[in-house]
């Protein structure tokens, strides 16, 4: 019987009925302390420290604070120190503040080569689906499940349903992976994929870089999906090869042979399937407080009356009120005060490069505070080797240290009430980037262009003529 990629990975990891084996468990400081405490109280140990990797990311300041003990906020300091202590006690490797491998958990895994095709991966974080870009099954879990995986290396899990999103057509100039996923979420809604593991497929996916694929899988949860995945191919293998944890020599060849079996068989069926025509896409900008409240940069903010469903109309009204916007306003007329370039969605080297290409030789608009936060220390080092830090600082951007930063209001990088931000992160929820903050989700190129213009602009016409924008 023909099988989906998801079926194949699932079957290989079944230990018993509804019990799957976890190949890699990523851990961070916010969702793990209670789990380690649970182990301690029960007298249990971490079953497989070699399949566990921790990093500090959500809480850490991005101002270059060199060690946990120097974090000014007492509660954040306690969480990061607790992570370090727990990892030392249980023998789990940890990249904490001061390590040159510290960074956002979903940037660190792929960059260390710990994320490989065909694996099962979990983390106490909903954006774990990012790792599915390598053809692995990766999803977010809660703290009780973190404890469960630490103790047993397994997870109790009923097999979710399957869904495929086919991206057809040729990606137009100036339209990126971020626009593809925002387009898909706009089309299916924020609960369009609830209960499903989503495979992203189609020619537009196959042509994407690994960074683009990670951006897409990252936001699966924003469509309600449990996990997102993309079948591995040569692009994947090339990316993994040579990374610190990647197999070498004969083991590499054997691994690639195995990984080549990871695709959805001809004739395999999904519980749900949708098609997104990428040729219809323009650069996307969210206008509301859920990621499906999204339009093209060439469009206008919808009016509440344009929604037939009374519930949706009410939601649109509340969202516009919160965002301080009027229905009918042109997106390009919306001015911004802050720009945030970073997060596990768009904080990788390719994202920073794409943004740098837009701003090179230009200046951030008056009244705009723009920050760039590399997703990891490794990304920061690589970007500095390419001189990107110079490009950003010359333009007036703040060049920061690695972490989640203003993706969520949990560390010193936050929006003030009423501040409007062009953000490359993944959630525009009320208060997500700081109480009362107003978030518009965009691609790195669009965020960079908005920083220069002081309002949203269409990066396709903003670009110097003829120069292509990387996907």
């Amino acid at each position, binding site marked *: 019987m023909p099988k989906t990629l998801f079926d194949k990975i699932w079957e290989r990891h079944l*230990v*018993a009925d*509804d*019990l799957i*084996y976890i190949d*890699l468990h990523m851990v961070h400081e*916010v*969702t793990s*302390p*209670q789990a380690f*405490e649970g182990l301690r109280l029960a007298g249990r140990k971490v079953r497989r*420290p070699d*399949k*566990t*990797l921790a990093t500090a990311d*959500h*809480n850490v300041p991005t101002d270059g604070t*060199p060690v946990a*003990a*120097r974090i000014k906020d007492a509660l*954040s300091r*306690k*969480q990061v120190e607790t992570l370090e202590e727990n990892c030392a006690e249980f023998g789990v*490797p940890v990249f904490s503040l*001061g*390590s*040159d491998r510290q960074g956002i958990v979903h940037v660190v895994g792929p960059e260390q080569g*710990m994320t490989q095709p*065909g*694996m099962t991966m979990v983390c*106490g*974080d909903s954006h774990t689906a990012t790792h599915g870009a390598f053809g692995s099954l990766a999803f*977010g*879990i*809660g*703290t*009780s*499940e973190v*404890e*469960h995986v630490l103790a*047993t290396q397994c997870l*109790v899990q009923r097999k979710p349903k399957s869904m495929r999103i086919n991206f057809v057509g040729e990606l137009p100039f100036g339209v990126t992976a971020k626009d593809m996923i925002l387009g898909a979420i706009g089309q299916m809604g*924020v*609960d369009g994929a*609830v209960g499903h593991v989503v495979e992203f497929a189609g020619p537009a996916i196959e042509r994407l870089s690994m960074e683009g694929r990670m951006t897409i899988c990252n936001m699966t949860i924003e469509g*309600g999906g449990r996990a997102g995945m993309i079948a591995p191919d040569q692009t994947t293998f090339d990316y993994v090869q040579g990374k*610190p*944890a*990647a197999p070498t020599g004969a083991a590499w060849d*054997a*691994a690639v*042979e195995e990984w080549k079996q990871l695709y959805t068989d001809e004739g395999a069926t999904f519980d749900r399937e949708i098609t997104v025509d990428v040729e219809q896409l323009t650069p996307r900008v969210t206008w509301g407080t859920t990621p499906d409240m999204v339009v093209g940069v060439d469009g206008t903010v919808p009016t509440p009356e344009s929604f037939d469903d009374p519930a949706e109309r009410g939601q649109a009204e509340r969202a516009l009120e919160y965002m301080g916007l009027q229905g009918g306003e042109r997106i390009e007329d919306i001015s911004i005060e802050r720009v945030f370039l970073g997060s596990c969605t768009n904080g990788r080297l390719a994202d920073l490069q794409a943004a740098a290409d837009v701003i090179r030789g230009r200046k951030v608009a008056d009244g705009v505070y723009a920050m760039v936060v590399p997703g990891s220390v490794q990304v920061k080092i690589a970007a500095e080797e390419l001189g990107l830090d110079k490009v950003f600082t010359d333009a007036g951007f703040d060049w920061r240290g690695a972490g989640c930063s203003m993706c*969520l*209001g*949990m560390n010193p990088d936050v929006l003030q009430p009423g501040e409007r931000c062009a953000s490359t992160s993944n959630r525009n929820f*009320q*208060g*997500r980037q700081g*109480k*009362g903050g107003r978030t518009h989700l965009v691609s790195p190129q669009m965020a960079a262009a908005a920083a220069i213009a002081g309002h949203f602009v269409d990066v396709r016409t903003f670009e110097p003529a003829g120069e292509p924008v990387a996907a």
Partner: protein
Amino acid sequence: MDPISIIEGRVSDLPRDDVDTDQIIPARFMKRVERTGFGEFLFHDAKEAPDWNVEVGNPILTTGANFGSGSSREHAPWALEDAGFRAIIAVSLADIFASNCTKVGLLPIVLPEEQVRAVAAAGDARIDLDAQTVTAAGEAYRFEIDPDTKHRLLNGLDDIGLTLNDEAAITAYEERRAASTFPGPSSLSLPPETSLSTTPVA
């Protein structure tokens, strides 16, 4: 976790869709390393909205579609539980949130919209987990729940203890994998940390 069988009492109503975990508990209140004490931060910012009138302190919460979307933070169910809620009756629930609820003894229930509205309108309800019913204003509505989850909740069982009963199967799986052509990466084989700074604190 305490066993759950009957949940009975007043109903609080939050009649909207897409109440995400950032609204249930904003990230800045997730910095505790303990499991308790999150109740005071429940709906911390959301409740400032002028039309907010959700009573806290009742055992049952009714709400709309896609409740608990967004972050996987178990702090959201912890905050709800700490504030006194024992069951959430929604039109639909985000996956991770629903699963997290069952780990903290908070019963996640999905019912069709008219039924959720009827329960909210009644103002009082009685939930019988064993019978899988919600009774309000004399009407009984049946809900579905995964049999294993139900068994675990009814008996207050520890998930980890249950899985460790499969120890032999886990070990056998690990041995099989270790002998295969692709045993998977090891985090312990990464170069050790050398740069973790030991700078004395000023």
